[in-house]
């Protein structure tokens, strides 16, 4: 932590005004939704009567609850097994079990829909055993399976790192007080993981209510799917605005609760944590542990990859022309790159302001940015869409509007990464630089920037990755003629053109593997 704050130093005007503008742009989508919400021409009860709002809310909430619980169970089990039990190559099992994180939910859903369609891959393979037709996987069940498989890694990442840092002396204490190994987990370990558990389940929850791709392909009616359906019908904007507002309220509620459970190590009292020896497993439990890990990894990673490979190979062999995906690749790369660059440019003054000038405005800015993290893309997209139609028709369906929309959703990622690296910049460095005759700008250029550029770069890489996978905003806002890989995959998959969808999915996964690998192997914030 910095030892003292520069309370007395006035925020430079440039910084102040540029941040005011940024703040204005960022609050615009919510502001516009609120404005429309207040000025609806019909009564609110009519919304509840005319559209199946309660059904949609119920569906969304039920999915939220089920996926959170399932992810938590799987994620905790995987964390405990890979961190605490004596299994073969725990690191490999750990890595394989978090890898599904890189698969966007719509690609995951695509593989499941195609594999388990009534006459799909599964039936073809098992036809030799007499399986002729299955009922297919869709709706609530399908959405649950897919969303759980691609969100439980969040729980694994967060809970396993917390578990690794738990001082096991406390568990020894519990054992000396007569508790057996099982009771240790229920009475000591899991209660101590309360914060990471709540934190990760809310992260999963945000993902679930915001998800558009998986529920659409699974044909399960949630708020996000309803928003897009009404948008496509183009009858009028009211229901789209109404549902988007509901969705944003839900998301803000979730992030609000999540902020309350800030993750910290305050429960650690002193000293370095004692790392427990990995528990030996009896033969029977060993069998179940490996079976469990294998099933999870097959369902979350091997099945999707194999299905994609199958479609790809079959498509290529049968001479089924894999349509040009070139346009999608160019579209994805250019939008992602531009979003990444702008996110870094915009994040920098915010990071500087929050860290180096502790003003009320700076704190307010930080809070807003934190609150905006995890806003459902589709709701932001809808708001930007209507703003461009009604207020700025000049940029309707323009590249600018699309990038602004991306930035509103993804900027918090760039800010987060930058802030982490900002901790190295001590106030004394700035004082020293000023004392040696450098101006504020020279100090920024010579001291702050060299120390934080890696963090900024990491933030940019994160935004690049997220933008490349983004689907609903792109669908709503893309200029005519602009395609991205995500849009390609989604439209091919909706039409049942699995070969083409698989081809684009492969390229998308391959391209995103590079920045993901760099981010995961190097600690770019230090």
């Amino acid at each position, binding site marked *: 932590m910095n030892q003292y704050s520069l309370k007395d130093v006035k925020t430079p005007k440039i910084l102040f005004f540029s941040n005011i503008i940024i703040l204005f742009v960022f609050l615009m989508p919510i502001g516009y939704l609120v404005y429309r919400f207040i000025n609806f021409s019909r009564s609110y009860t009519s919304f509840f009567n005319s559209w199946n709002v309660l059904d949609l809310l119920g569906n969304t909430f039920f999915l939220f609850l089920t996926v959170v619980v399932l992810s938590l169970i799987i994620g905790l089990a995987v964390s405990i097994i890979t961190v605490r039990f004596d299994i073969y190559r725990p690191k490999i099992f750990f890595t394989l079990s978090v890898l599904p994180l890189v698969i966007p939910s719509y690609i995951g859903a695509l593989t499941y829909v195609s594999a388990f369609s009534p006459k799909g891959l599964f039936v073809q393979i098992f036809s030799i055993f007499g399986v002729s037709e299955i009922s297919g996987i869709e709706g609530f069940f399908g959405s649950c399976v897919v969303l759980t498989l691609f969100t439980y890694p969040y729980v694994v990442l967060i809970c396993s790192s917390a578990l690794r840092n738990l001082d096991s002396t406390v568990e020894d*204490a519990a054992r000396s007080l007569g*508790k057996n190994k099982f009771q240790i987990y229920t009475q000591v370990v899991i209660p101590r993981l309360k914060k990471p558990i709540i934190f990760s389940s809310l992260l999963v929850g945000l993902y679930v209510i915001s998800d558009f791709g998986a529920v659409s392909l699974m044909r399960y009616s949630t708020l996000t799917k309803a928003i897009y359906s009404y948008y496509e019908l183009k009858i009028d904007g009211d229901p789209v605005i109404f549902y988007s507002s509901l969705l944003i309220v839900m998301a803000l509620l979730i992030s609000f609760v999540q902020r309350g459970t800030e993750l910290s190590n305050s429960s650690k009292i*002193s000293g370095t944590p004692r790392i427990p020896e990995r528990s030996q497993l009896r033969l029977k439990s060993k069998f179940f542990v490996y079976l469990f890990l294998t099933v999870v990894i097959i369902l979350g990673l091997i099945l999707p990859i194999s299905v994609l490979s199958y479609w790809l190979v079959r498509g290529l062999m049968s001479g089924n022309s894999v349509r040009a995906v070139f346009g999608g690749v160019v579209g994805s790369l250019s939008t992602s790159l531009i979003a990444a660059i702008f996110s870094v440019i915009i994040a920098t003054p915010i990071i500087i302001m929050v860290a180096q000038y502790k003003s009320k405005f700076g704190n307010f800015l930080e809070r807003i940015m934190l609150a905006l993290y995890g806003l459902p893309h589709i709701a932001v997209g809808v708001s930007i869409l209507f703003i461009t139609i009604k207020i700025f028709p000049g940029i309707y369906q323009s590249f600018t509007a699309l990038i602004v929309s991306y930035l509103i959703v993804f900027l918090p990622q760039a800010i987060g990464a930058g802030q982490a690296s900002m901790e190295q910049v001590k106030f004394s460095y700035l004082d020293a630089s000023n004392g040696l005759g450098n101006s504020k700008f020279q100090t920024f250029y010579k001291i702050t920037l060299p120390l934080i550029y890696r963090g900024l770069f990491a933030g940019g890489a994160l935004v690049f990755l997220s933008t490349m996978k983004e689907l609903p905003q792109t669908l709503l806002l893309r200029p005519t003629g602009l395609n991205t890989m995500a849009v390609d995959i989604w439209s091919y998959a909706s039409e049942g053109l699995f070969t083409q969808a698989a081809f684009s999915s492969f390229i998308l996964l391959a391209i995103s593997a590079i920045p993901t690998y760099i981010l995961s192997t190097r600690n770019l914030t230090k």
Partner: protein
Amino acid sequence: MVFDSLILRARDLSKSYGSESVLTNFNIDIWEGSIFGILGTSGSGKTTALRMLAGFEIPDSGSIEMYDNVIFNEEINIPPEKRNIGMVFQDYALFPHLNVEKNIAFGLSKADQNSGRLQEVIAMCNLNKYKNKIPQELSGGQQQRVALARALAPKPEMILLDEPFTSLDAQMARVLRDEVVSLLRETKTTAIIVTHDQEEALSVCDIVSVLENGNVIQSATPQEIYLNPISQSVANSVGDPNILKGFSVDGRVETSLGSFVSAYEGALDVAIRPECIEVSLNSTGPYTVKECIFYGHDQVISFQNNKGELFRARSLPSIIYEPGDKICIEISEVTTFPSNK
């Protein structure tokens, strides 16, 4: 104090991590109702020894018996939760997610919690005021009390304390030490205290084992250890003696500070504790004061002989010694043991 029945007997416990041996042939006998000290520097294996007795670590060989029941040998390993041995950890290891009362109740059955045992322990350890606090809100001394109360609550056969007072400041450590000892004595609880603090071991324990590099080098009463250490390293571990080299012929040894009776023949070390050297000012004395460090309750005088060899003496603080003062000395007690080399 007289103790008449053995509660725990450990024989030939050994443990190594890879090629590094932490403990070799560790033997102890613990008498019921006694307070037993294991004294050693960090890395001497004392914490490993304690963790083995508690069952957290599995010895490579050896056996442990409690009241003639084997709790560990080659075939049997009773898990820690069934040994009925309480433990107080160096950093207390209080459960951060439970308040003080629930921490103390953790090892008690529902029936015991309601029988009044819980409140009894809380009262015994003066923790009534802090019942509803969470551990992080307490000072080090209070946390220590909670840790002790938690360990005592299920009435264990014995209680192990791992460096119980090192995390506290010196004054608090002394106050709490007295409290803990009187509590252990009152409840007639057998205890093993692991410590690196010689004063703590000598003042608190009935019997002390000195551990070095994984070996017990002497087990005896504090007086015996202090007055008759069996080796230079034991002498060093309790107190800070002057060590003089000498060679004994016919039961007498000549050293730079005079000639003494010796129990051994040949090359040997003579240990003279600073407090066994009495100093007096004398303008014709053979020694010269080099430095004097004043501690309040006493002072340590460094002096040298005409060959320039340095020695230390401890004296009451009443007389002031200045560097360069000439002094005479009188030696009241020496210990001899065979030379290391």
